[in-house]
């Protein structure tokens, strides 16, 4: 274990909202509760937070500049440096981490929120696609994922049975996760007997539609040690994007994931837990391969995005679950992965280590 210095940054608290098919709460209310929960978990108050960054999406919210009212959740007084990314909260965490690296402030909160139940995600997703070649075709995320699944199946890199096995495993693992939306014991042959939603994907290959939010608190070196008995250190953090247009990429690999993992130093020693934003079953083996994970790494023991998928928070929850694994002693070193864009276009890798 390397000696941590003042420039190292640690996760010291977090909170995750209930994961629901339909929430009656506003995004701001969901955020307000998880920010309260996260700063409470860190043993601080909002007044001690120097910087905040939120990840959310106006197309999901159905409102322009929806993030402006979400800032109420941070607390209007005392004033804070604030930022927002139109990205999953994992990228908000990245920005907060970069902000703390500047060294002039010590504590930051990152959050992610999404209420995707209010409209049809199949109509929302095309809005974020290439505006000339993809959006006018109504190219939805499930169809684009299915094109990648078929490419993997045709190449023999995965089978429909393996995909169903992943669904069964994650739904079973989700039984231990109070936040999970989809969980239980399922029979592989029953799942494979179901109709396709869009061939080659069946219902169990898809993530649920989920409303939810999460928040995480990070702090710099000495402040982290002062505030927390068990700070969880961010030892590597990188994100890489590749070409947007799926037809220009080899869909059977994830160059961006591999590059980000290398930049984050993931291969320097084994991880015991990997929380991956594999929103579709076939993405899991692809990501495991691109991250170079060994057989000893437990993949998505929380159930992962197949158990709860609050768009714009799903990726940050992966980092939180990877941190939770260390806090609960299930891992000494873990990795959180987040993804954005069609067919795993952009990928973020966050490597975590405990104190000892």
């Amino acid at each position: 274990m390397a000696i941590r210095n003042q420039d190292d940054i640690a996760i010291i608290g977090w909170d995750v909202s209930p994961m629901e098919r339909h929430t009656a709460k506003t995004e701001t209310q969901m955020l307000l509760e998880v920010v309260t929960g996260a700063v409470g978990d860190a043993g601080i108050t909002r007044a001690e937070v120097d910087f905040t960054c939120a990840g959310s999406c106006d197309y999901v919210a159905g409102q322009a500049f929806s993030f402006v009212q979400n800032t109420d959740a941070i607390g209007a007084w005392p004033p804070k440096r604030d930022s927002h990314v139109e990205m999953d909260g994992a990228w908000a965490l990245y920005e907060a981490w970069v902000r703390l690296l500047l060294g002039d402030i010590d504590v930051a909160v990152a959050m992610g929120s999404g209420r995707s139940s209010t409209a049809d995600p199949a109509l929302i997703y095309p809005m974020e696609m290439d505006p000339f070649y993809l959006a006018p075709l109504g190219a939805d995320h499930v169809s684009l994922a299915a094109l990648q699944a078929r490419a993997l199946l045709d190449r023999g890199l995965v089978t429909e049975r393996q995909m169903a096995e992943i669904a069964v495993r994650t739904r079973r693992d989700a039984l231990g996760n109070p936040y999970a939306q989809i969980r239980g014991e399922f029979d592989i042959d029953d799942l494979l007997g179901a109709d396709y939603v869009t061939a080659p994907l069946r219902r169990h290959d898809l993530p649920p539609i989920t409303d939810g939010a999460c928040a995480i608190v990070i702090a710099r070196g000495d402040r982290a040690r002062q505030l927390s008995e068990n700070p969880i250190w961010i030892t590597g953090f990188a994100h890489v994007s590749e070409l947007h247009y799926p037809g220009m990429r080899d869909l059977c690999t994830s160059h961006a994931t591999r590059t980000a993992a290398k930049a984050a130093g993931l291969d320097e020693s084994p991880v015991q837990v990997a929380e991956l934003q594999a929103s579709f079953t076939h993405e899991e083996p692809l990501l495991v391969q691109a991250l170079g994970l060994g057989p000893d790494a437990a993949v998505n023991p929380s159930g992962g995005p197949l158990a709860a998928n609050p768009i714009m928070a799903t990726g940050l929850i992966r980092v939180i679950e990877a941190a939770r694994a260390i806090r609960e002693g299930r891992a000494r070193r873990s990795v959180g992965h987040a993804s954005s864009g069609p067919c795993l276009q952009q990928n973020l890798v966050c490597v975590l280590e405990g104190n000892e």
Partner: protein
Amino acid sequence: MTQVTESTISFPYKRSLGPVIGAFLTGLAQQRILGIRCGERVLCPPLEWDPETGVDLVPEDLVEVGPAGTVTSWNWVSAPTEQHPLHHPFAFALIRLDGADTTLVHVVDAESIDAMATGMRVAPRWKEGRTGHITDISAFVPGEQSVAAAGAGPEEPVTMMDYNASITYRTPITENTERAERATEDGWFLGLRCPICGRTYTGGKGYCPIDTIELKVTDEVELPQTGVVTNYTIITPIQYPGQTETDPFARVHVLLDGFDVVMGYQVLIEVPNDEVRIGLRVSAVWASEGEKGAVSGWTDSNLVGWIPTGEPDVDDPTLVNRIN
């Protein structure tokens, strides 16, 4: 049961195309498919830059590809959305057009899923009334033969593209908002007073942003219906969709009596625009039983607006700063 409000947002974009995408879409209008040379490769659809190096690719490097091609991946859409180009079951596919090294995302109009296979050959079926749009190919169809369509397409190169989408949202209404709206239907203003700082909020706000706590039914207070104009604006309407006003009109901010609450952008009635002023004492006017539902304004409330009380103006130079 949570109440929801339904709203449809339309996204009517006009996009400029630039030299490469414009040429590609102009080609489609002419029933030709263009790729672009990029080193040893041909990219279709054409990009404006080399994805490996970022170097600009130029229209001179455009080359015709296809029209037939090979399906390299596909999925079967059994329940199309309103945004999909076909309204019966179809396949999305990655299609490597003859002469291209990358694949085009488009749709295949096949009779059934059984007619689809990786490696199958497809050709474009052109649309009539082409405008220079990715859907000028109405779909690819199985086989080697493209299906031509009548009409020559636009005479000039295509430089702009329309994109229209709409999304319907069903947004839950929080209990606080519902109770506040019911109050205005019944002719009164509901406030929520923070038990910590005492600040009072209107509109059913669910929390105090200063103390970051939830506000509950037990925090409700009835607000007064008289106040003073603190600031105003005279709006000259432009006729965007939904704007029903045609002549310049006033919107005022009203500081309620005895409460630290400013109601913003309120309707002022029976006051000519040149007599609107800071310090004017006003009182709320509600729709009568027969007028209910006919009130035009910014919300569904039965508040008609604010009318002068006839009391002397308030002379306070700090009032102007109160806009919230």
